[in-house]
Each structure stands twice: as C-alpha cells, then as structure tokens.
C-alpha cells in the first residue's frame, strides 16, 4: 500500500518555483492542494469513475518536469495533424518553448495570446478574474491537482467582435526527458461577445515513455461568440492522460468541441459545458480509436441552465485488441431551462472479441417543455454489409477496413477546419487499411 497522495506530493509541491506568484495565486494553489490532499485519487466507488480505475496513476509518484529537451520544429510538426503554417504555441514537457512557437500572425490579428507565467506578470487582474473560476476544483481531484501544480500554460483573450479565421494550434510535446514526470498544462480562453475563434490542442509524444498529463482548460464563450475547440490526444501508449475542458456559454453563443483520442495507456477526457445564456448551442463530437490494452474514457456533461438552448452530441468509439472504452454522457436540464432541445448519440464498434465497452448515457431532467433523447449502440461490423461488399468483389480485409472507416467518417466530418479534418481522416484511413490508398 502506497502512502496517501498528500504525503507523496508534498515534496514536489515544495519544489515548485512559487516566488513570483502573487498572493491570490499562492492562496488558490494552497487551497487546491488542500482539496487534492483531502480527496486523494478517485476510486471506482466514486460514481463518476465507476468504470475507470486510476490505480496505475495513483500507484506511481510522478516528479515535477524540470528539463526540456530540444526537439526541432520539424520533428514536432511530423507528429501533429493540421496545417504547418498555423500559428502555434509549443509546450515541451509542460513548459512553453518560445523558439518553437509562432504567434506573430495572431497578435497582428488582435488576439491576445501569452503564456500563463507572462500573463500573471503583465495582466494580473485579467488572470485573477478568470483563472480557476470556471474549472472549480471542489470535489474534482484532478482539477485540484492541476490547479495546485500548474506552472505554465496559455492565456488566450479574443476581444469583442473580433473574427479570426486563423486557428491557434497549441502543441504539448513530451520527450524522453518526461519519463516519470507529471505535466499539468493549463489553458484559459476568454472569447468576448460576438468574437469567433478556433483552437486546436494536440498532445503528442516523441518517445514511448511513461508520464502523466493532467490538463485543464477553462473556456468562457461570451454572448453571440463562436468558439471551436479541437483536442487531438495522441500521447505515448505508455502514458496516462487526464484532460478536463470546462466551458461556460453566454446568450446565443456556439461552442463546438471535437475530441480525438488514440493515445495513452489510460486516458480520461472530461468535457463539461454550462449553457448559461438563452438560445446558446453546444456541439460535442468525439472519436476514439484504441487497441492493445489501452483504456479510453470520455465523460461529457451538458448543463442546460437557460431556456431555449440546444445541445448535440455524437461520440463514436472503435475498439480493438483488449481495449476498454468508457462513455458517460450526462445531460442536465434545470427547471428554468424550458424549450431545451438535447440530443446525444454514442456508438461503439467492437473489432475484436476481447474488446469491451461500458456506456452510461444519462438524462436528468427537471423541466417539462423539453425534447431530450439519447441513443447508444454497441456492436460489430454488419455481416450483411460485409457480404454485400464481397459480392461486389471487394475482399474481406478491404471490406472491413472500408466499413470501419465509414463508421468513423461521419463524426470526422463535423470538423470544420479542412487541414485538421483531412489530417485526421488520413490517420484513420491509414490505421484501418494499413495503406494510404486502396
């Protein structure tokens, strides 16, 4: 039996460079650490973690990441999907590498992007007003862990009415130096009313090392703003990944989240949105492809607080080998949220007899004038469809690859950034067909 998390991480907390932190930040970190110590890592007795055991994370004691390696831009871009010309912020082992980052075009366009460390120095009021306000850590052990230990991250402020087509690509790279380390990247996005912006967050690894990423993103979408957040999780298959995206939405706003997950030995992605303003819309889409003994867990919460909001959700999973997939989608409708229109679908394809999936689509509804549905299916490839393809002269292997790809394709189509969609389609296609073309 390991010592409790509290004692194991006290030393690491002491090693953090907190001298520059203003008093409010120091207080926030101390409070978060206290909460993390009190909670410890969740167990499967915790309903939100019923199907995912974080024992592998809890059993290890990760170190603070200190050293950054020196990957080249070419090495990093080879690992990511999207357009190489997109402005990017590159974090190596949790720390921003300004030499690899190219943010000039965005700054010119009027988007204020800075690292968390810089923002704390330059715009302390702005950070104090927003950091930890959406992603509260009460009863959330991993968010508390991140809040206490987050050293660097990115602060993105999109001013009122600014419409920017150019997306921001945030690349988190772990290299060989990350072995045994924990990385707590933090992202804070404030999209002011009527602004429009795209963010792509990629998590990649240069080496197949074992490390722990515990990311937290807070995204505030103002009235009438439109924000697209894409998360591409392709961590090392030895790594552990827990990522939480906490969103609040104003009136008539649109938030679109796309989550792609194919990496990590154990991954958990939380996407939580709160619809606070009338007629706001949320679209949550996701695709996860796992194999071997990988474990991929997605949890989404959509809280309809204001009336007349719409939420659309489509998650698909493809599981091979001994992989284990988990999906928990919750839709809450408050008594005030009349005229809510909520739709959720979750479909899972099991490619191997040993893969397994646990799904828990959940509705909690307290208002009467609402339309809410959810659907969930689990199965394998349709024998009839396979037979049809064979009768047209397409071999068994190609038929399976095509049908599997087709299963994934409709959720990939929801990605509006062409370069990202094409890139993800290419990876998915190569994965199933083992070639770049049929």
């Amino acid at each position, binding site marked *: 039996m390991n010592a409790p998390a509290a004692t194991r991480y006290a030393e690491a907390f002491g090693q953090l460079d907190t001298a520059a932190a203003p008093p409010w930040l120091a207080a926030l970190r101390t409070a978060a650490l206290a909460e993390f110590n009190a909670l410890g890592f969740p167990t499967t007795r915790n*309903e939100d973690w019923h*199907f995912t055991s974080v024992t592998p994370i809890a059993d290890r004691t990760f170190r603070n990441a200190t050293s950054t390696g020196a990957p080249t831009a070419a090495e990093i871009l080879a690992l990511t999907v999207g357009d190489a010309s997109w402005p990017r912020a590159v974090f190596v082992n949790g720390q921003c590498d300004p030499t690899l980052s190219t943010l000039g075009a965005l700054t010119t366009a009027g988007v204020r992007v800075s690292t968390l460390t810089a923002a704390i120095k330059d715009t302390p009021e702005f950070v104090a007003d927003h950091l930890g306000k959406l992603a509260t850590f009460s009863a959330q052990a991993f968010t508390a862990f991140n809040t206490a230990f987050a050293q660097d991250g990115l602060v993105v402020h999109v001013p009122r009415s600014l419409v920017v087509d150019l997306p921001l690509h945030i690349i988190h790279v772990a290299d060989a130096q990350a072995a045994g380390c924990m990385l707590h990247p933090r992202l804070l996005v404030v999209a002011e009313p009527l602004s429009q912006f795209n963010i792509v967050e990629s998590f990649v690894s240069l080496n197949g090392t074992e490390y722990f990423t515990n990311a937290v993103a807070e995204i505030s979408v103002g009235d009438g703003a439109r924000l697209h957040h894409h998360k591409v999780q392709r961590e090392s298959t030895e790594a552990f990944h827990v990522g939480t995206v906490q969103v609040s939405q104003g009136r008539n706003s649109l938030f679109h989240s796309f989550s792609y997950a194919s990496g990590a030995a154990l991954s958990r992605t939380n996407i939580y949105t709160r619809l606070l303003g009338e007629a706001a819309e949320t679209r949550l889409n996701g695709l996860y492809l796992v194999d071997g003994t990988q474990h991929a867990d997605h949890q989404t919460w959509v809280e309809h607080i204001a009336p007349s909001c719409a939420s659309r959700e489509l998650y698909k999973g493809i599981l091979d080998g001994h992989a284990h997939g988990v999906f928990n989608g919750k839709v809450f409708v408050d*008594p005030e949220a*009349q005229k809510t229109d909520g739709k959720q679908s979750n479909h*899972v394809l*099991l*490619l*191997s*007899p*040993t*893969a*397994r*999936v*646990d*799904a*828990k*689509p*959940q*509705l*909690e*509804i*307290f*208002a*009467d*004038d*609402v*339309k*809410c*549905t*959810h*659907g*969930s*299916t*689990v*199965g*394998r490839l349709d024998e009839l469809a396979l037979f049809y393809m064979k009768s047209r002269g397409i071999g068994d292997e190609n038929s399976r690859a095509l049908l599997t790809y087709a299963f994934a394709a409709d959720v990939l189509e929801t990605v509006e950034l062409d370069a990202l969609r094409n890139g993800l389609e290419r990876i998915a296609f190569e994965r199933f067909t083992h070639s770049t073309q049929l």
Partner: protein
Amino acid sequence: MSSSIETLVNKEYQYGFVTDVDSDTLPPGLNEDVVRLISSKKNEPEWLLEWRLKAYKRWLTMTEPHWPNVKYAPINYQGARYYSAPKSVKPLQSLDEVDPELLSTYKKLGISLTEQKMLSGVAVDAIFDSVSVGTTMKEELSKHGVVFCSFSEAVHNHPELIQQYLGSVVPYSDNFFAALNSAVFSDGSFCYIPKGVRCPLELSTYFRINAAETGQFERTLIVADEGAHVSYLEGCTAPKRSTNQLHAAVVELVALDRSTIKYSTVQNWYAGDKEGVGGIYNFVTKRGKAHADAKISWTQVETGSAITWKYPSVILLGDNSVGEFYSVAVVNNKQQADTGTKMIHIGKNTKSTIISKGISAGEGQNSYRGRVQILPKAEGARNYTQCDSMLIGNTCGAHTFPYIEVANNSSTTEHEASTSKIGEDQIFYCKARGLSAEHAISLIVSGFCREVFKELPMEFALEAQQLLGITLEGSVG
C-alpha cells in the same frame, strides 16, 4: 381549465380505510429473539431458522444503500414491528371460515374471492397482512400437479423444494433489504409448476398491508420446471397511514430449461398525501434466473408508494434464454421512484428487451436505472432498451441512468431514451373534439404506455389504465 381538475388532484386515496381486526402483533424492535419468535410462531423447521439467523447476522454487518436517486428520513428499524397475523389463524378449509370482516375488505377492494372464482377463473391466494387466509381453485390446480400455496404451507408440505430453491436466485447476503427480508419474512406465496405443465389458470395474489406500523416482508418463490409455463399476477393496495411503512419483499423466479414465467405487477400502495406525509417505502428485490431456452418476463405498473426502489432483473444463465422487462412507473405529488432492471447475459444467444415508460407529475421524481451486462461468453447476445419519460409540469423530474457493459463483440446492444411532455395544445385538441380534460390525459397517457399495457393480462390491463387515470387526473392545468 383547471377548476374541475383541481378537485381531482385533491382527491383522497380511494382505498384508504382500515379494517379493524384483532392482530397478533409483536412489540416493535428487531433482535435475534424476534427472528426466533417469528420462526417458532410459524412452526418452522430448524434449517429455516438457521437460514434466518444467518441472514440476520449478515444484515447486522450491512449498511443501508443510499445510491438510489431518492430522499427519505432515516428508517428506524428498531421502531417497526416485524410480525403481525390476523387473530383468526387456524387452518381454514373453505371461504366460509374466513372472518367476514376480511371478506368485506376484499369486497371494498373489488376483489371478492367468490366473484373472481366464478367470473374470471383466477385462483386467488389472498394475503391479508402476513398470513394467507383463503385459497381457491386449488383442486383445479392440483389436478395438473401445480403447487400454489402460502410460503409457510410450502415449508411444511414441500420442504425439499423450498430448501433447494430458497435463496438460489436472491441469496440472503444479496443486499441490505434482501438480508432483512430473509431474516424476518412473514409469509408469501410459493408456486411450483411440474415438468411440461402449462398452468391452466392465471395465478394471482393480492397483497395488503393492514396493521399500523407493520413492515411487510413478503417472500415469493416461483419454480417452473422444465418446459412448464405460468403467468403470475400480483396486485397491491394498502390503507392510508400517517407514518411510513417499510415494505421489503423478495421475489425469486426459477425458470428451468424451456420454461416460461410471466410475472405481472400492479402496485398501488398508499403514496402519502399531497405534502408527502405517510406512504409506503417499497424497497423490493425481484430477480429471476433463466436456464437454457427459458423465458422470464416482468411487467409492472407502479403507481403507488411514497418511494419505490425496485429492479426486477433476469440472469440469462442458459443459452438462448430470454428476459423481458415492461414497466410503467407513475409519480405524482411528492412520490419518488427509482426503478428499472438488470439483464445479465451469460449464456449464448440470450436476448433481452427493456421497455420502460416513466411519467412524472406534481413534484414527483422518477428515475430509470438499468444495467445491461454482456459477459465475455455471451456469444450473439442481443439487447434492446427503450426508456421514455413524460413530464407533466415543471416541478417534477425525470432521470435516466442506464449502464451498458459489453464484453463480447458478437453481441448487439441498442439503447434509446426520450423525454416529452403532455402539452396544453394536445389537451386543447382533444377537448375541441369533445373529450373532457381528464379523458384527454387518460387517452394520451394510455397511448404513451400502450406497449407495456399490451403485455398485461386483460383484467390487469383495464385496472392499470384506470389506476393511471386516477393517479394523474388534475396534474395538467
């Protein structure tokens, strides 16, 4: 539109009356001596007492579950009485010997034994509080070798069957309430259908809780031997009470190879008044085990009880076995229901169907909680789940907690859920066609619940529709 409806909303519980019968009642409290006393009062054999004591000891180590989505004041287990039998407890030969007051109680409930015997051909084993007082149509059943009697009778007459099957589906250690029931169960029904026999009658039992402050701990065991077929009906009404009564029943179904058991329930226990005072706590464990090619079908219409907490489940043990769950759960005023099912697919080509309809009105909270488990060996298993909720008013809630756990890729599971409402416009339309508001609601709700009602035996289907109408009348306005 709501003035006429208001009178209906405020309608008192129609079946709230108390029959004044002298009861042989134990003082409140639970300890080992109470368990021994219950056992000795029923002249039980040593092995059954041992079993009760094992359950009691296990119960002491368990804690009350609080994961269901219901809220209630803590239950004082030492404040309840654990045994109550009508005084007139001597072996009865015919209905003539039954206390006339009991018979008139049944009349008030509209289940006159004699009438039912003649008109509907249903054999009724009526349970008044905890002791079975009248049994009909026994001859007809015994001709076919069907055993249908009270649990206590079965313990004496068919000890080998009871010993073999008691606790085989719901072990005494299963959960807190099942353990409590195993320790103190008073009586219940036992049914055995021999090999290849198709039970000629619909078997039915009416449960009633009468003496105040008496927890009712029924135990039902139904065994369908190979190739047998039985349809069992259970209906409940209970008189009005001001303090909550705990009902922790256990129902075990054993469907051996190629047999079929159909178990239908209409539950209309006292739900408490408008303020949520009183009402029954209905914490029930129901489970069936289906062997090869067997089929178990649960149908339930839940309109009563302050709190309902039950998950009729099927363990699909044998290859090609089938499990079904059809449910209508209605909550009004301050009622709370957390109900659903568990389908555990173990055998190959096992099939399960779940149709659940939840209706919430007033300040009622209705939760569907279901688990579909496909184990690795369950090749070709198939599940279809549909749970629909209807909300009436914005002070109620409808919740869905389905758990789908699949560990075999040759299986197929489908789950669908939806939420809708009865709108003013729908009612307006019906009224424009000359229907009254209450008829309109009744019509819309019947349509919503049709898939479940059609699974009920006919006389139950009629009763269920009426019950639904009564429960919901006045909730729109």
